[in-house]
């Protein structure tokens, strides 16, 4: 059985034991195909967060993985390491016994929302730098897969910082089962005598997974796909009033803004650049495993990288809100194509042409991302004497914030 077949079988075995979340499981498997993968499962209690987490881990690690549970008392020694007392007493040397969680390739975090801030900080450092510190000693953490789950509705939740959640590549939502799915679950429980997790076989080794990760990393995406990924992320970051550095946030910041009906006005805190990396990894994995990844697939995949990263102005139902934003994004992309924006920019990249520049200006007042690129080029044309400063879009529209420079005075 070749590597791809093994991965497909891993997915199939998980799907056989977890009812009703086919697409989520597929994306979850795709997300494991890059080094140091991290997955967050979010759902109310009793919908199978821990079961899904264990099924995925068992498929790779068998029983050789470590679960740190936020619901129990977690001490630093259990997550990072503890001091070896005999060495200290006999030899006066501080030796650290690194915790099984640090050494294990399969890592699981149950009920992340209940983890205390100190444990969270240690795990955050591990995810950020691939290393842990204890008693002045450092240990490098080898490649791993980390699956976590949480119930944000839980009354005993700690509020973890946004950068911590940003370290998770994707976020999966689970829903309750429909009537027919409940029958399927009962049959499944009867079949495995209530031990669904125990019945999950180990399909491949971690070395197999590392080889798959290596092959996926060698996939080179074509510029069109990279462009779409970067566009999606940039559309969810760009702000004409520089919300990234502004103390005043939307919706107050958007009052009287030219783009008040655009996607940007719905986003309070913009996406980080990790979103681009996470989406790129998913697209590469899909190309490797499924053989192709179309534009529509990229837009659909964006759904999994957004919920834990975006902070929206108004949130009714995060998954419905993100679907709506992605639908707006789809319309925006069609709009750009219809206006031939990229063809205009391509012409202007070759050389300055005033009639085309006028078309570009018309397009720029409808699109912040396009305006950013045009304004960058305007700066160059002003320096070269092709355009007067008072003729530029940034001067005429008062979009000085879009004039990106290394140092802002």
């Amino acid at each position, binding site marked *: 059985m070749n590597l791809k077949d093994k991965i497909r079988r891993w997915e199939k075995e998980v799907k056989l034991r977890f009812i009703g979340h086919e697409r989520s499981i597929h994306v979850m498997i795709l997300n494991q195909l890059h080094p140091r993968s991290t997955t967050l499962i979010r759902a109310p209690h009793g919908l199978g967060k821990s079961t899904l987490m264990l099924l995925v881990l068992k498929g790779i690690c068998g029983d050789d993985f470590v679960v740190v549970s936020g619901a129990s008392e977690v001490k630093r020694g259990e997550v990072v390491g503890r001091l070896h007392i005999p060495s200290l007493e006999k030899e006066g040397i501080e030796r650290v016994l690194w915790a099984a969680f640090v050494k294990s390739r399969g890592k699981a975090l149950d009920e992340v929302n209940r983890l205390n801030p100190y444990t969270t900080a240690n795990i955050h450092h591990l995810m950020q730098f691939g290393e842990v510190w204890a008693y002045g000693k450092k240990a490098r953490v080898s490649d791993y897969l980390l699956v976590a789950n949480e119930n944000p509705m839980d009354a005993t939740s700690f509020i973890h910082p946004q950068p911590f959640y940003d370290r998770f590549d994707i976020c999966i939502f689970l829903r309750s089962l429909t009537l027919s799915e409940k029958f399927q679950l009962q049959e499944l429980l009867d079949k495995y005598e209530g031990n669904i997790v125990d019945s999950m076989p180990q399909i491949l080794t971690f070395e197999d997974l590392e080889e798959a990760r290596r092959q996926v990393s060698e996939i080179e995406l*074509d510029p069109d796909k990279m462009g779409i990924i970067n566009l999606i992320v940039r559309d969810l970051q760009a702000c004409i009033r520089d919300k990234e550095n502004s103390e005043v946030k939307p919706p107050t910041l958007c009052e009287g803004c030219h783009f008040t009906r655009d996607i940007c006005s719905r986003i309070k805190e913009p996406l980080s650049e990790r979103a681009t990396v996470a989406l790129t990894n998913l697209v590469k994995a899909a190309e490797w495993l499924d053989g192709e990844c179309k534009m529509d697939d990229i837009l659909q995949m964006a759904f999994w990288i957004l919920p834990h990263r975006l902070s929206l102005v108004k949130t009714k139902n995060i998954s419905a809100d993100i679907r709506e934003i992605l*639908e707006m994004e789809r319309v925006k992309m069609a709009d750009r194509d219809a206006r031939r924006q990229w063809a205009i920019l391509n012409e202007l990249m070759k050389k300055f042409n005033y009639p085309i520049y006028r078309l570009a200006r018309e397009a720029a007042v409808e699109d912040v991302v396009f305006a950013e690129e045009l304004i960058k080029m305007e700066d160059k044309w002003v320096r070269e004497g092709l355009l007067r400063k008072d003729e530029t879009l940034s001067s005429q529209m008062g979009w000085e914030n879009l004039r990106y420079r290394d140092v802002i005075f």
Partner: protein
Amino acid sequence: MESEKYREFLKKRAENRPLYKNILGEKIIFEVSKEEREEKHQRGSSDILESILLGREIGRNVTVDREAASFLQYRLDMLEEENAQMRRRMRFMKIMIVFLAFSTFVTFAYMIMRLI
């Protein structure tokens, strides 16, 4: 310095949706590529977005795909919202005009009475 992949992205997108220059004076007219035109001829129908945004002549049959329909719906919603906002502003301005006219009239009347 621009990334090579960024340039390639622009080039590829420009190939998919080309910009044909037909400069008459300073005016640029968008034209669909020869292939697109042939494709359309074969299909015997035209894209509604082309006619709305680029002023192309509508063919015998008009196709509206899901993306175009949602785009039009979004645009219509925006315009309706703007329309309603303008109406509210107009109503407010009308009230203001009546109020100002009335106050001007009262001031004049008061001043004339004072003079008499």
